[in-house]
């Protein structure tokens, strides 16, 4: 446990020395801010605030989910792959640290950084709450954010796992991005095509869990279980990949 925390702390503070991390944070916040302003202008110029009160998910939550899919691979790509390139993997693998502690620590560091980033975006629902009457639906907002946090946990774990399979961080980023797009969207496609049995594909699609359940406030235990199992899967892939490195 102590080792996980030691490694997580290092990774977390490492993001503040990383230009990629700053670029991603900037990119996410500027997109959300721009979209938020545009949405407000649109609302006030057209039918105004008289229509349905916009919920926080509609305004920024959905966009944030999409932005995360495209940016998380660049936060996880170097976590293990870069240790190999720098030769520091030898240091970590000969320190008294278990392989899973290493992987979980790295994931936790990245997760804390993304949590911070997501927390900053709370400023948008907060502003929205000030602007509309009688305020936004807080439960809906919390449920959407719970979805975002669980999604980030799962996607970061898969990113760490894939990073551990590669020696080149950009290869890791590319494969992670493909994997996330697949899980986010493609895997759910058969649900629209198949006449029967499409439910399983809908369940496997992270996008449908987020948009159909967390965003609408109809969260049930199976949504949470799915995202947590993806997290576990990613961390297991990472641990196995690190073990495999020893045998090579």
């Amino acid at each position, binding site marked *: 446990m102590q080792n996980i925390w030691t490694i997580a702390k290092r990774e977390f503070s490492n993001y503040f020395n990383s230009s990629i991390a700053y670029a991603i944070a900037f990119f996410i916040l500027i997109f959300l801010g721009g979209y938020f302003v545009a949405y407000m202008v649109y609302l006030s110029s057209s039918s105004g605030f008289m229509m349905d009160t916009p919920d926080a998910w509609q305004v920024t939550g959905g966009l944030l989910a999409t932005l995360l899919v495209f940016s998380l691979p660049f936060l996880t790509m170097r976590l293990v792959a870069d240790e190999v390139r*720098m*030769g*520091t993997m030898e*240091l970590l693998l*000969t320190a*008294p640290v278990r392989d899973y502690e290493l992987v979980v620590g790295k994931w936790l560091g990245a997760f804390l950084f993304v949590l911070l980033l997501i927390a900053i975006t709370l400023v948008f629902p907060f502003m929205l709450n000030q602007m509309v009457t009688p305020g936004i639906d807080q439960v809906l907002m919390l449920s959407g954010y719970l979805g975002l946090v669980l999604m980030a946990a799962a996607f970061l774990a898969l990113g760490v796992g894939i990073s551990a399979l590669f020696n080149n961080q950009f290869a890791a980023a590319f494969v992670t991005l493909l994997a996330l797009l697949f899980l986010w969207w493609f895997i759910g496609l058969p649900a629209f095509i198949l006449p029967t049995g499409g439910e399983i594909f809908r369940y496997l699609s992270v996008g449908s869990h987020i948009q159909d359940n967390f965003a609408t406030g109809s969260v049930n235990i199976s949504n949470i279980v799915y995202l947590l199992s993806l997290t576990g899967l990613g961390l297991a892939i990472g641990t196995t990949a690190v073990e495999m490195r020893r045998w*090579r």
Partner: protein
Amino acid sequence: MIRVNELTKTYGLRKAIDNLTFEARQGEILGFLGPNGAGKTTTMRILTGYMPPSSGEASIAGYDVVKESLEVRKRVGYLPETVPLYTDMTVFDYLKFMADLRHLPNAEERVEETLEMVRLLDRAEGYIGNLSKGMRQRVGLAQALLHRPEVLILDEPTIGLDPAQIIEVRNIIREVGKERTVMLSTHILSEAQQLCDRILIINKGKIVAEDTPENLQARLTGAERVQVRVRGETQDLAEKIAQMKGIQNVQSQGEGLIEFQFAPGQDLRPEVARLVVEAKYDLLEMRSINLSLEEIFLQLTRDDIPVPAETVPVNEE
């Protein structure tokens, strides 16, 4: 302390190390010598728990390196060949991170003590990326020494250092080696000769010789070789020396240099000196030249067949 038994590691079809068996006692500095690709790094990586062997076993302080890897890793300090450093961290933060991974109490004090030991205290707040090669090497060494390990495994600890830094690092190793077991690999023979209590010469994954530096030299030289320098031409003098009883293998090397050898213990230098003077040559210099460890090393690791120490030719003609 270190016990290695029939250790083998294969990469595909190639045997990186082949049936290695050796031991190192507490308080001993064991030198691990061999050309590049001999299997030194592979052996060290197995001992430090970085990778498992293909067969055979090894233990450190009584713990098996595969089954009780974590216990082994707690007790070993390891400096890999390419010093693993996070260049974007300060020296202090890096060592603090390693100290935390090893659960050291008073980690900060321990880091400072260790920095004092490798004389880097004044650079504690500097970024590792800005340090010179020699300083980085010392940071790596500090990392290996942080937890005062029972066993210190150093892969080419003085490579790429300037002479003053080499002396400093050797002094640290000597200091540490008084109480702890140190295993170091090098291909600098004089280093092994100066530092190590025992030397293990390894070639193509096999041990080809194992002894103290002095014994290795004595065992392998087998004869005392002497060089004489006189003024002028030496052709007839060389012949005269060659005719003396007990003198072997005379070589005239031009410019007044003659080399010859005789069996150890039978010192013929005074006789030769007299002969030179009687033959009306000006004797300028006479010195004994020992077959250096370099030459022994080359003989042992030359190409294919490893020559067992006992059968190295002793120039009997």
